[in-house]
């Protein structure tokens, strides 16, 4: 009887404790998983927002890189975490729209996550070496039709992989998988090197990854996918070339929790992000890297990501790029 009473008291206090915790979320530090390696685009973006975001949250943010398998390892860690808002993920275009669209064997789907924000958009640019003699998208397409053109990527199922195929397809290449060879590399740095040393003809990737090569005259940009021109990139926009559909081909960084994240927690993140993205230093650093700060609340973020996923998925199915094994 005594034990029983104790049990009841314990349950009660636990319940009370739980409600108290919800009322005061966050009452302890929040784990933030970065599914890519230190020094990469996601890592830098995450660590730049972490400072103003930490101030807004009012509790420390513990940043941890959990890398591997193109962002899948870190994503799975958050997918399996409790939806209490104390484990959140920096989601990226590669891990959360290209990968789910391309890989049947991925251990997660978009439904396993609840996105609370997308805060950064990265334009995509396509580039070649000046030595290639290719000066415009038309030149590139002409070369593709002749044959022998290849493009590099940071790996199968990366944004770069899909982007190469999508751009060629939009420019009227019937079967981009046959017309051009995809040469996967390990990582974004290696992908750029492959174009520099002539292993591949072109690549399409985030403008921030290309900015230094373009500024140094090592690579020549052919096109950017945003409606507005990108600073430092002397190349036409997709809209100027009449390919508005390519506007969807952009990189982004956002924050997600597990799918059972409660509404009030998601709403809180929305508020915090609204405060954090006002920070002038954050804006300055990100703009200098060629990112466009574009804050989306939880609903907009979900709609944006699902929209991009559907476009990518349709392309993947049409071209037969889905990886089943």
């Amino acid at each position: 009887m005594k034990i029983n009473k104790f049990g009841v008291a314990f349950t009660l206090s636990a319940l009370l404790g739980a409600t108290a915790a919800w009322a005061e979320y966050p009452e302890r530090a929040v784990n933030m998983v970065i599914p890519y390696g230190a020094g990469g685009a996601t890592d830098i973006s995450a660590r730049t927002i972490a400072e103003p975001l930490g101030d807004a949250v009012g509790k420390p943010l513990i940043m941890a890189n959990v890398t591997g398998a193109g962002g899948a390892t870190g994503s799975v860690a958050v997918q399996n975490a409790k939806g209490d808002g104390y484990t959140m993920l920096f989601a990226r275009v590669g891990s959360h729209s290209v990968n789910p669209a391309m890989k049947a064997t991925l251990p997660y789907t978009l439904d396993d996550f609840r996105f609370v924000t997308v805060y950064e958009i990265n334009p995509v640019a396509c580039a070649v070496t000046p030595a290639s003699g290719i000066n415009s998208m038309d030149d590139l397409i002409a070369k593709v039709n002749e044959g022998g053109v290849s493009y590099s990527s940071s790996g199968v199922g990366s944004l770069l992989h899909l982007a190469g195929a999508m751009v060629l397809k939009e420019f009227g290449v019937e079967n981009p998988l046959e017309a051009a060879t995809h040469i996967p590399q390990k990582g974004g740095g290696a992908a750029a090197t492959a174009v520099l040393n002539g292993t591949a003809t072109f690549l399409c990737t985030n403008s921030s990854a290309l900015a230094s090569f373009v500024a140094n005259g090592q690579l020549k940009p052919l096109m950017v996918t945003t409606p507005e021109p990108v600073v430092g990139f002397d190349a036409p926009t997709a809209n100027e070339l009449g390919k508005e559909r390519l506007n969807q081909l952009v990189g982004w960084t956002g924050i997600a929790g597990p799918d059972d994240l409660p509404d009030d927690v998601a709403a809180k993140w929305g508020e915090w992000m609204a405060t954090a993205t006002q920070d002038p230093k954050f804006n300055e650093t990100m703009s200098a890297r060629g990112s466009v700060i574009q804050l989306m609340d939880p609903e907009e973020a979900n709609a944006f990501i699902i929209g991009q996923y559907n476009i990518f998925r349709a392309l993947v199915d049409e071209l037969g790029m889905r990886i089943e094994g």
Partner: protein
Amino acid sequence: MSLWDSLMAGLSLVATFEAFFALFAGICIGVVGGAIPGLSATMAVALTLPFTFSLQPITGILLLLGVYKGGIFGGSIPAILIKTPGTPASSATILDGHPMAERGEAGRALGMALWASCTADLVSNLSLILFAGWLASFALSFGPPEFFALILFSLTIIAGVSGESLLRGFLSALLGLLLATVGLDLVYGTNRFTFGDPNMMGGLNFIAVLIGLFAIPEIISMAWNPVAHLGKARALGQTKVTFADYRRSFRSIIRGSVIGVFLGSIPGIGAAPSAFLSYSEARRKSPNKENFGKGEIEGVAASEAGNNGVAGATLIPLLALGVPGDVITAIIIGAFMIHGLQPGPMMFILNVDIIYGLFIGLIVSSVFLFFVGSVAIKGFRFVADIPKRILMPAVLVLCIYGVFAVNNNIFDVGVMFVMGWVGYIMLRYRVPAAPFLIAFILGPLLEDNFRQSMLMSGSDPTILLRGPITWFFWTLTVVTIVAIVRSVVRKARSAV
């Protein structure tokens, strides 16, 4: 701007207390970080990166470079003292460094590691300053076929580190190649040997395998037979390295530095293969070949020269091309970007003060490394005096902590223990661990570059013989294999 003006501009940028303090602090952090098993140089650099965001660009970059250089040296300390590489690059140092420590010559081995590291570091930094442009264009002539030929040649190192039995060495290498296939297929993106576990999709974590293979078997042996070591002499490492030692190993150190510079300037190889290649070349050329692997000081010198020779040279692709050469420089490039610097040929024109500031900082770093390293050796040498029954549990705790921290993933700790038992069985059956490691590092590179070559050529194998670089390495490979076969045959005959 003349060279003098550039130098002065650089000097005015780095001749501040903060810049030098950052460099010094970086080396201290690196040596300690590198010396903790599991907390590799890469981890130390990654952990330092966020602190550089608020610093001046040059100060931040010097801090990271200090951590990098300190870490590569620091890794040799546990490699020598407790047979656990603090950082993958120091795996080769174990081969001769640890037997020396067992003989009570820990101080001598550590001293040689430091001298060789600093010499190689200096050679590497000078190469960066003098030949960056030339080496960068050399590096750009390395496409997948050239890589394939180079890696194929590097695999012949296995023969040099197999110890008494070539057959056992091959067995070990095969096991390494097999385990390296776990993860995502590069070209098709399909799962290989992941058994449906998402944790395996990224492949087996390198640090976990490394620690599992070297440190855990020692701990298991200790637990198996707690008193086995008691009779053995493992006295205070009071012995010091002498100038005669240094002079005797000088040729190996310079050879190792040059190997390091070449491999470092080619993006994508890293310090560990360079250390092993330098080691096996030193062994091949040495008159006391037989003594290698049993505590030959020249082996320590060659390995340490090989890995530190990479440290300055990896900045060549970084600064001259804007391309990260390995995992560590990929992190450092992040520090450039966060400050709006764009490494590449134009940086030599636009930010010439930063470039020369870095050069000055690098040269100074070799000197700092020498002093910090000397102090560290004095401190860490006494680790050799700690009774094994106290040391080993402490090492185990550090290993678990370090391996977990690499990727914040408990699965990696499991990998470490499984590999520990594999390593223990290998130890019991006298199968050497070094060939396993070399195959584990080089196997994926060999496969990826082969398949990339085939994609480039449309499956035409003649691409593997394009250009003089491939021919050069193919010839070297054939010559080395013939030499190995001849020595095996001769051994067999003399045995009969």
